[in-house]
């Protein structure tokens, strides 16, 4: 692509994002809002995950820990302490960030598969803690979390009001990710992913950058988890189970690793599939998910968005 065409490409992207943003504003009048809210939560979760895998090259197999912990913290704060929803979400996000910092310190010393295994094991510890302490309700889950009033004013039990809160949370989260990727910090992350020794020799404190990326990713995953708790008014063990960690990998992979919109597209596809398949195929859900995984890895590694981008690029060259 020549440098001359870049401004137009930039304008095109801006038009695309503005269009998508407006679409999101009117969507709840066409599509079932609760479903949309769930979709946005997972889109944010997957985007946060992608920040780590797609742009820093670190595969965390324990991201459910952040989603779940934030969900439980937010739920407990809102239900038992009685804070307003925005404080609950904030508390959940901060806790997830702190947990991310602890995970990060332990995990970033290794890379690749080692990193994945360590995050998996740490997340497993979180799972046991959540299962066993009284406050979380064990297998019953944390139930009956009130949606409450935003800033003490706006009643969130109204689905449309809740939708716009979720949409705002998603947009902010997504914007943070977008900015992070396009900032100098994001560029350094990419440099580390491509060639770590080189980045070190250029004088970057690689571990510090990785840790920071991990904390941001964990916090945003937490943001998604805390919001999810408010939507469904519950947090349950499946949020912290390693299957959820696997699911987010699948979403990102399917949508397009290292693309900005990919994780959102991937999670939308998976959540829709799960929703639609629920009444149709019964026990074959996991088999279908597994097959998507295998097909993605073998034949479709760029993911949906990645393939589309490649198509556009090829058309542009021609």
């Amino acid at each position: 692509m020549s440098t001359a065409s870049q401004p137009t490409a930039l304008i095109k992207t801006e038009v695309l994002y503005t269009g998508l943003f407006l679409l999101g504003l009117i969507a709840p009048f066409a599509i079932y809002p609760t479903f949309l809210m769930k979709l946005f939560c997972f889109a944010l979760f997957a985007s946060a995950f992608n920040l780590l895998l797609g742009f820093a090259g670190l595969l965390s197999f324990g991201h459910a820990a952040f989603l779940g912990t934030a969900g439980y913290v937010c739920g407990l704060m809102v239900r038992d302490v009685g804070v307003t929803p925005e404080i609950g979400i904030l508390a959940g996000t901060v806790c997830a960030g702190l947990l991310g910092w602890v995970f990060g310190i332990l995990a970033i010393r290794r890379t690749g598969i080692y990193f994945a295994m360590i995050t998996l094991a740490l997340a497993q510890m979180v799972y046991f803690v959540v299962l066993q302490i009284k406050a979380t309700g064990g297998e019953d889950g944390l139930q009956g979390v009130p949606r409450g009033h935003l800033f003490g004013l706006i009643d969130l039990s109204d689905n449309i009001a809740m939708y716009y809160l979720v949409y705002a949370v998603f947009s902010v989260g997504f914007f943070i990710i977008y900015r992070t990727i396009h900032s100098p910090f994001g560029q350094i992350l990419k440099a580390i992913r491509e060639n770590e020794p080189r980045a070190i020799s250029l004088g970057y404190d690689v571990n510090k950058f990785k840790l920071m990326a991990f904390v941001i990713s964990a916090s945003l995953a937490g943001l998604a988890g805390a919001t999810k708790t408010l939507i469904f008014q519950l947090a349950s063990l499946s949020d912290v189970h390693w299957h959820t960690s696997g699911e987010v990998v699948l979403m990102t992979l399917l949508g397009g690793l290292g693309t900005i919109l990919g994780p959102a597209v991937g999670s939308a596809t998976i959540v829709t599939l799960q929703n639609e398949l629920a009444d149709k195929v019964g026990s074959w859900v996991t088999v279908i998910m597994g097959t998507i995984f295998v097909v993605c890895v073998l034949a479709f590694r760029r993911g949906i968005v990645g393939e589309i981008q490649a198509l556009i690029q090829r058309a542009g060259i021609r």
Partner: protein
Amino acid sequence: MEIFGVPSALLGSQLLVGLINGSFYAVLSLGLAIIFGLLNIINFAHGAQYMMGAFIAWLALTKLNINYWVALIAAPMLVGLFGVILERTMLRKLYKLDHLYGLLLTFGLALIIEGIFRDQFGISGESYEVPEALAGGINLGFMFLPIYRAWVIVASLTVCFGTWYMIEKTRLGAYLRAGTENSQIVQALGINVPLLITFTYGYGVALAAFAGVLAAPIFQVNPLMGSNLIIVVFAVVVIGGMGSILGSIVTGIGLGLIEGLTRVFYPEASAVVVFVIMVIVLLLRPAGLFGKAA
């Protein structure tokens, strides 16, 4: 006699039980370690393949009336063959890519295999009786040791150390080890490395199935029997140092013993103790107990 307020008889029996579990960990983590050593892939389907081993033994007994001893040999071979097919048709395509894709592929495979078994056999599981010759038990004074459990220790240690001997002391093992170090040079020496890789994956998978057959009479044979166990085994491999053959065996047994002790002194923590140890080990020795520093 008491040790820390625990009767020594109970302590002894718990250590023995720990040793039994440790043998399982050892066989499973050995399989993972061998695969990782040569293919650089964490085989997420290991738990599913372990489950397949157990199910094949059960199917063989109930549908075809094939006894335990035949199944002990045949099931690993069948599952190993299945592994060879997987390697030839799928894993092979991924070697040039980031190793993480191997992990993701096998994760997907695990989902498929478990899903199919669940659909076919339901979730409650099936019962596999202890073979006639190994039924009953011996009274050791401090505990009643089922003969079958003793057999598990003997069988798994034999297989573990046999494998270790093969890798460390034979020509085939030398090729394997060389392949792990630098596959291009080995290839240049005229050794068929792709075949070696296929064989290795098949053997690692067969080990998982072997553990599955061993487990069938002890645990309820059900489609999810491997999915929780495998996470613990991953931790064992990480602690031992990935790719280290002897490391995986020793760590497997050692962690089984430690888990057994935890069950005496603080049973609530026995599920997390392996992960706690993992964190400590990684803080002190990032490459694992027996791993080479990265």
